[in-house]
């Protein structure tokens, strides 16, 4: 079959491969090269070596965005996963009508980031009005606003994955734990949690990458205000491309660093899932 199929490359693979080259492969290689260049438009490019990379590590805005992103990611990964697991645990205890709750909790996940940002801007500003401030008054408000928004959006999604994980635990395992005299808490810590570890890994990395790469929500909620203090990395990179009259080389260099960090996270994930597979 291979032989007769082989000459069909233009029919089967070419459209996807061509589109992939135009929208990913060529821009990626160009982007790598441009991170070592000084340019305002692509027509006037001069090679400057690692100057851009030296410059961005002296750029306070960038370092601040990096730190803000890390803090935000850690806090939202923990809160989202804990709350999602608790909800999933409650919803898998055989109550009636849980489907309705599942549907409700999952809904925010389908709403786009820009719209989410504006929904929460009005609500958070409405609450802060009682203290006579707005969300752009202090970076603290922007930070917790983003955390709340992200929780609201992702808890339902992670909950669904945890529910699938919990439902996959063989019933007899839980029953035999009960026969052996394990209480509800013991069963939770010694049977349920170890058995859903694969789901935990998935959810941790999904929330990790989603939080780390966040753009739309950040853009709509605070747009980095005040003074760019609530800028996350993706927004900081965006602004160094489109809100600058100077060289865009630094923006591209920031993007390369961003890519490397995300790459490391993905690599860790790969190793973590591989190890799990070996254990099983």
């Amino acid at each position: 079959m291979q032989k007769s199929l082989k000459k069909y490359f233009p029919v089967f693979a070419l459209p996807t491969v061509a589109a992939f080259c135009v929208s990913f492969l060529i821009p990626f290689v160009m982007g790598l090269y441009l991170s070592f260049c000084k340019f305002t438009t692509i027509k006037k490019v001069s090679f400057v070596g690692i100057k851009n990379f030296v410059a961005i590590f002296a750029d306070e805005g960038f370092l601040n965005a990096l730190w803000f992103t890390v803090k935000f990611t850690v806090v939202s990964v923990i809160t989202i996963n804990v709350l999602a697991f608790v909800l999933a645990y409650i919803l898998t205890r055989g109550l009636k009508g849980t489907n309705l709750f599942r549907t409700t909790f999952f809904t925010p996940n389908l709403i786009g980031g820009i719209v989410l940002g504006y929904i929460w801007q009005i609500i958070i500003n409405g609450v802060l009005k009682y203290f006579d401030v707005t969300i752009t008054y202090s970076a603290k408000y922007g930070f917790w606003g983003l955390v709340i928004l992200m929780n609201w959006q992702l808890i339902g999604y992670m909950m669904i994955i945890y529910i699938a994980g919990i439902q996959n635990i063989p019933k007899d395992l839980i029953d035999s734990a009960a026969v052996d005299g394990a209480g509800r808490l013991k069963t939770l810590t010694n049977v349920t949690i170890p058995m859903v570890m694969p789901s935990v890994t998935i959810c941790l990395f999904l929330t990790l990458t989603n939080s780390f790469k966040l753009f739309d929500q950040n853009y709509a909620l605070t747009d980095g205000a005040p003074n760019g203090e609530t800028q996350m990395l993706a927004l900081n990179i965006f602004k160094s491309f489109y809100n600058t009259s100077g060289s865009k080389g630094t923006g591209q260099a920031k993007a390369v660093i961003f890519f490397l960090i995300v790459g490391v996270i993905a690599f860790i994930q790969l190793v973590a899932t591989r190890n799990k597979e070996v254990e099983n």
Partner: protein
Amino acid sequence: MNISAWAAAAVAVAAGVAVIVVLRLISKRFKAARNGILYVVLSAVAVVFLAPVAIILLNSFKNKLYILDNPFSLPDSTTWTGLDNYIEGVGKTGFLSAVGWSFFITIVSVGVIVLCTSMCAWYITRVKNRFNSFLYYLFVFSMIVPFQMVMFTMSYLASKLHLSNPYGIVFIYLGFGAGLSVFMFSGFVKSIPVDIEEAAMIDGCSPIQTYFRVVFPILRPTAVTVAILNAMWIWNDYLLPSLILDTTKYRTIPIAVQMLRGSYGAVDWGHMMAMIILAIVPIIVFYLTCQKYIIEGVVAGAVKG
């Protein structure tokens, strides 16, 4: 609502917690009571999940002057403006054409992605050579590269190639969706026994007939997952279309909403509330009609992706 109302709310919550603790102590043996508590907790959480959208809906009927004053008050005879926000907002943002383009771009892109990437995945999985396995790893690699890495160069290339319109963007989405989609289809193709396809070919099917008559029907469950994941992404995507499309001519819904912010930060919150509601309605309708597929698709996508 004012400070004292918040204090009252806090007291109510504290009282609720106290009641729950006491009931728990009493009801250790009474399953019904415990379930009752769980229902109360779940309902409270459900209210928290629905309240934001309900608040936006209420405010969409208020005059813009009163929204920021107190977004939590019900509309009354002074603040009520009926459907004015909707009518003006739709006119100002070109919302109807944005809805049209959003539907067009999402449906066509998803169709093209499902068709092209499933064919591509079948080809590179079945024809085993170095080039194809290299392609496969490139697709997988592209999944981890954040959009910011390629956004500047990609939008430059797209405008050079005259792809800055709703038809060209389909091609761009095919390229961007290729990573995850090829990866998911390939995973499934590997689990299908080759014998079925070989039998079809021996019986005289050309590769194209084999694909459409034998392979694609088997791939259907994965195709549904791929379609759902891509539809959710493309429908809500803001950055890519805002960079690629000429936004004076073509807007998608997220672009139309973002445009209300204006260049000086003066937002007409009345219009904003109405447009948010209009942006959410199609998603809710879609979700309620294909709920089962969406939830299954999301779980399958998370596990494989």
